[in-house]
């Protein structure tokens, strides 16, 4: 009777879970049953049947755990301490390998720890607020000629929602403002501060943002009346010193010289990770009797300000439709009160949970920037990649080193130690290494956080006092120890004792694992090369951005703002003073500097020859007549605007072209309308970049308007900078004794446009260095192993007269091939990634092919440096050393 072999896959599975003692008999039984079934039903059914019985055999009698011999022994304290002792001795004995292993893993772990801490920090914002799932911020979206979003609303929105819309439990609105604060102490001396975390609010605020412990006063009444202020405890202590909260109540504070209020309550924050980190809460009613009243015109639906925040808390179980109904009612009312026809405001809501992550809207006016969830995801990817590279590295080195353990394995096996306890023993070793790596990684991750301090929020630090941190770290140690150790443990424990213990022959294991090691090396180098190429591309783009001519002069230009609440006459006094300083070459005052992050646009109407109406949304720059001279803006046709001629305007080339003039110069003399006001174009400005290079050049006009021009800019000889600054400071103090002067340099302002890019390239650079470092560690370990393996070959070749170069080539050839393979993969992937990143910019530099080539060359050079010394040593060794064993 001919017999059939059962299908391979289920048999493999069966072998993998079946205990060694039972395997032979059970496999034989299954074989027999399978063949009987073939005779009965044919081979197709039999195959299915075989699968079935393999699955059915997944029971205690077959499973590895039933090995009675090892029961209790496996987990006993004695064997554990024995394992740890042996592991420790091994670690100590193989110093180089251990050091490489620990350093590699420590880098991976520290990156992971730092990034993971940062992510969990960012994700924990506002999570303490009760009912946060039913709190929403109302924000504004503009439609029509004007597009964009604003995190605030018009003033009447909150009142309307409160009075006319059903389905909302609480509506609260507050105004975020920066103020000068004057506090009078008991002796009558006044201390002043400048604060930005101030809001004007009413009692509903504390209902919605329920995160305070009341040390004095009551949430219901403390903001009910005019002249009240509630303070956050820490801020109050800054104002009044460390006195009891109850003693602070009733003290007087003056905001912005004119808003006199009494402390009516002291609160304490119950959580640190909150975006609602306001410190002074002034009762809203206080504004009614002061100059602030003008800011809050109760029926002005058309002015939207991001300072004016509206939040709603809806009832529990409010459905999507009900939420929608609220918005529909609000938007109908908004439309009814619309005063202009050119753009419209549409109100939308943002869940409180998204507040911290909405990069479009931002958080609040005076809070830090919102966190980009995408950035967090990318960071997480980097963290995991680092950890995986480090684990690969460990696996790589350990499998290569497994041969050193062959004697130990052989001896133990012949003494009757089972494979599973050998695996436990090796896993103990890898876990111990992971543990040591974690210890090393702690200072490393602290340094990492320090190094990236400009990235991470100021309040962030790795929480050593949090027990959860230690538990997670320990868990990480076990996971890493297991993942990194399991494969090498299997390899090492599978050696057969008979082979390893033969005294004469040097034991060489089967080539198993060699291919895997190659895969690891290739993937490490793919990551490393990807990072090298992307970093080079980023750096070249960033330097392009910084060096590209913006079209105006930014060097040697200093500017500052004068206080908006002071009169324009006072500013004129300062200007007169400044014009007496001889080192200031040009002096100009204007509303906005030539390039900035934000913008202001107006809708302009133009009728062409056929009387067709052409409407554009046009960027506005306004100021005096010296603007062009200060920033060296070039006119390509016409002339500058005249003083006091507020109907004259200059437009840029782009706008002229959009108006239908192929030759922009011909646009001189045309008229256009803003509402009822007519402007006449008297000059054409050469195009310049008035926004960052992320955006293209859009239509722009410049008009003479001194009214709100609160920026004073001046061109200064760079050698005279110090004296000029001193003199300007001096004059400023004469005119505005109570206000601080904040001078800015134009070129620094432009650099700040590309902060994100500069930061990203910094991260990329560090990640590159780390990835290369880890890959090189792996390479170093592998070359050492290869050299040992090939020592005999090298010896024989030398005896036969091979040159150093020949031998070096033989030893390193394989690695260069691996690096080349990695490059072939890394090249197209990085090309795609770079293209994706570049999409953000309207103006990009050419990433030439040599950047890719350079990426490949750098990795080869570094690899060469890593293995060079080892190879030199090996090729230079006396062949007697390697051959005398035989």
């Amino acid at each position, binding site marked *: 009777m001919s017999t059939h072999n059962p299908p391979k896959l289920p048999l493999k599975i069966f072998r993998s879970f079946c205990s060694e003692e039972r395997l032979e008999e059970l496999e*034989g039984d299954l074989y*027999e049953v399978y*063949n009987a079934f073939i005779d009965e039903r044919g081979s197709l059914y039999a195959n299915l049947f075989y699968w079935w019985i393999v699955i059915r055999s997944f029971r205690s*009698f077959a499973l590895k755990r039933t090995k009675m011999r090892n029961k209790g022994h496996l987990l006993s304290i004695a064997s554990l301490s024995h394992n740890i002792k042996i592991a420790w001795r091994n670690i100590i004995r193989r110093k180089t390998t251990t050091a490489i292993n620990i350093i590699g893993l420590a880098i991976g772990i520290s990156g992971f720890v730092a990034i993971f801490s940062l992510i969990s920090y960012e994700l924990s914002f506002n999570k303490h607020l009760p009912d946060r799932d039913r709190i929403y911020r109302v924000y504004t979206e503009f439609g029509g000629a004007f597009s964009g979003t604003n995190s605030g609303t018009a003033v009447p929105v909150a009142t309307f929602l409160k009075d006319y819309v059903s389905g909302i439990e609480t509506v609260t609105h507050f105004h975020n403002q920066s103020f000068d604060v004057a506090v009078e102490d008991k002796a009558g001396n006044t201390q002043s501060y400048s604060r930005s975390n101030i809001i004007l609010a009413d009692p509903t605020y504390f209902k919605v943002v329920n995160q305070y412990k009341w040390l004095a006063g009551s949430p219901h009444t403390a903001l009910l009346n005019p002249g009240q202020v509630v303070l956050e405890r820490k801020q109050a202590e800054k104002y009044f010193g460390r006195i009891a909260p109850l003693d602070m109540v009733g003290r007087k504070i003056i905001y912005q010289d004119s808003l006199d209020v009494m402390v009516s309550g002291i609160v304490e924050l119950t959580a640190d990770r909150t975006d609602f980190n306001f410190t002074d809460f002034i009762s809203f009613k206080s504004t009614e009797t002061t100059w602030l009243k003008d800011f809050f015109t109760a029926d002005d639906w058309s002015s939207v300000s991001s300072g004016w925040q509206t939040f709603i808390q809806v009832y529990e179980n409010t459905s999507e439709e009900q939420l929608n109904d609220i918005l529909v009612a609000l938007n109908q009312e908004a439309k009814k009160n619309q005063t202009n026809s050119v753009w419209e405001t549409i109100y939308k809501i943002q869940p409180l949970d998204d507040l911290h992550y909405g990069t479009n809207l931002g958080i609040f006016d005076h809070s830090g920037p919102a966190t980009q969830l995408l950035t967090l995801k990318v960071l997480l990817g980097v963290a995991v990649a680092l950890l995986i590279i480090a684990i690969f590295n460990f696996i790589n080195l350990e499998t290569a080193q497994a041969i050193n353990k062959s004697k130990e394995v052989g001896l133990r096996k012949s003494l009757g130690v089972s494979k599973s306890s050998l695996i436990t023993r090796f896993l103990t070793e890898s876990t111990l290494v992971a543990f040591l790596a974690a210890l090393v990684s702690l200072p490393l991750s602290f340094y990492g956080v320090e190094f990236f301090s400009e990235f991470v929020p100021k309040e962030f630090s790795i929480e050593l006092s949090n027990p959860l941190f230690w538990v997670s770290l320990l868990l990480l140690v076990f996971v890493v120890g297991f993942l990194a150790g399991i494969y090498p443990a299997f390899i090492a424990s599978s050696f057969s004792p008979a082979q390893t213990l033969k005294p004469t022959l040097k034991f060489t294991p089967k080539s198993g694992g060699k291919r895997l090691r190659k895969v690891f090396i290739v993937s490490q180098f793919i990551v490393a090369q990807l990072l090298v190429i992307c970093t080079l591309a980023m750096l070249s783009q960033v330097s392009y951005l910084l060096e590209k001519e913006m079209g105006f002069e930014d060097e040697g230009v200093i500017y500052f703002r004068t206080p908006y609440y002071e009169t324009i006459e006072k500013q004129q006094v300062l200007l007169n003073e400044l014009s007496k300083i001889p080192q200031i070459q040009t002096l100009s005052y204007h509303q906005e500097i030539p390039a900035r992050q934000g913008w202001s646009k107006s809708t302009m109407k133009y009728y062409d020859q056929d009387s067709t109406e052409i409407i554009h949304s046009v960027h506005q720059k306004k100021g005096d007549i010296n603007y062009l001279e200060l920033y060296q803006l070039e006119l390509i046709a016409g002339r500058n605007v005249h003083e006091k001629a507020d109907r004259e305007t200059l437009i840029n080339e782009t706008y002229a072209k959009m108006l239908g003039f192929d030759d922009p110069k011909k646009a001189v003399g045309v008229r256009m309308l803003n509402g009822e006001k007519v402007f006449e174009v008297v000059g054409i400005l050469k195009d310049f970049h008035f926004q960052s290079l992320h955006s293209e050049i859009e239509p722009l006009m410049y008009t003479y308007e001194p009214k709100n021009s609160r920026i004073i800019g001046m061109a200064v000889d760079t050698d005279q900078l110090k004296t000029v600054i001193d003199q300007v400071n001096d004059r400023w103090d004469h005119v505005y004794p109570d206000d601080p002067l904040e001078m800015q340099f134009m070129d620094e302002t432009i650099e700040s446009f590309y902060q994100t890019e500069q930061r990203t390239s910094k991260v990329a650079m560090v990640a590159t260095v780390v990835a290369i470092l880890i890959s090189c560690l792996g390479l170093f370990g592998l070359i050492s192993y290869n050299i040992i393996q090939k020592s005999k070959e090298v010896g024989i070749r030398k005896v036969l007269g091979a040159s150093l170069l020949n031998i070096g080539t033989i030893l390193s050839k394989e690695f260069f091939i691996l690096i080349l393979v990695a490059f072939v993969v890394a090249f197209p992937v990085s090309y795609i990634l770079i293209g994706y990143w570049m999409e953000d910019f309207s103006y990009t530099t050419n990433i030439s092919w040599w950047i890719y080539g350079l990426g490949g060359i750098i990795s080869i050079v570094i690899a060469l440096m890593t293995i060079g010394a080892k190879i030199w040593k090996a090729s230079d060794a006396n062949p007697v050393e390697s051959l005398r064993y035989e």
Partner: protein
Amino acid sequence: MKGTNLGEFEELVLLTVGILYDNAYSVAIQQELNRQTDRKVSISSVHTAVYRLEEKGLLDSRMGEMSSERGGKRKRIFTISQAGKEALEKANELRNRMRNQIPEIAFEHLR
């Protein structure tokens, strides 16, 4: 291990091992059981039973010779141990004793 109490299936397996005498390995036990009881017994149920019986000490075992029918694998041959024999007798005796205690009258209505 819970005493020497036998389940019904275990008792059948034990009996089969006895019947087959020196040729009692899992596949043979399965076939004999199928023949004798006219029910479909799967190989893994037999495995479960024989290994448990061995754990209980009711069966002894040794490895047999290898054969090509089994893909060159040896079989494990089971024999009834002293304890196994006692357990069988005890079960048998218990059954008989209890059977004998049923009064004739209990079957009266079946006539």
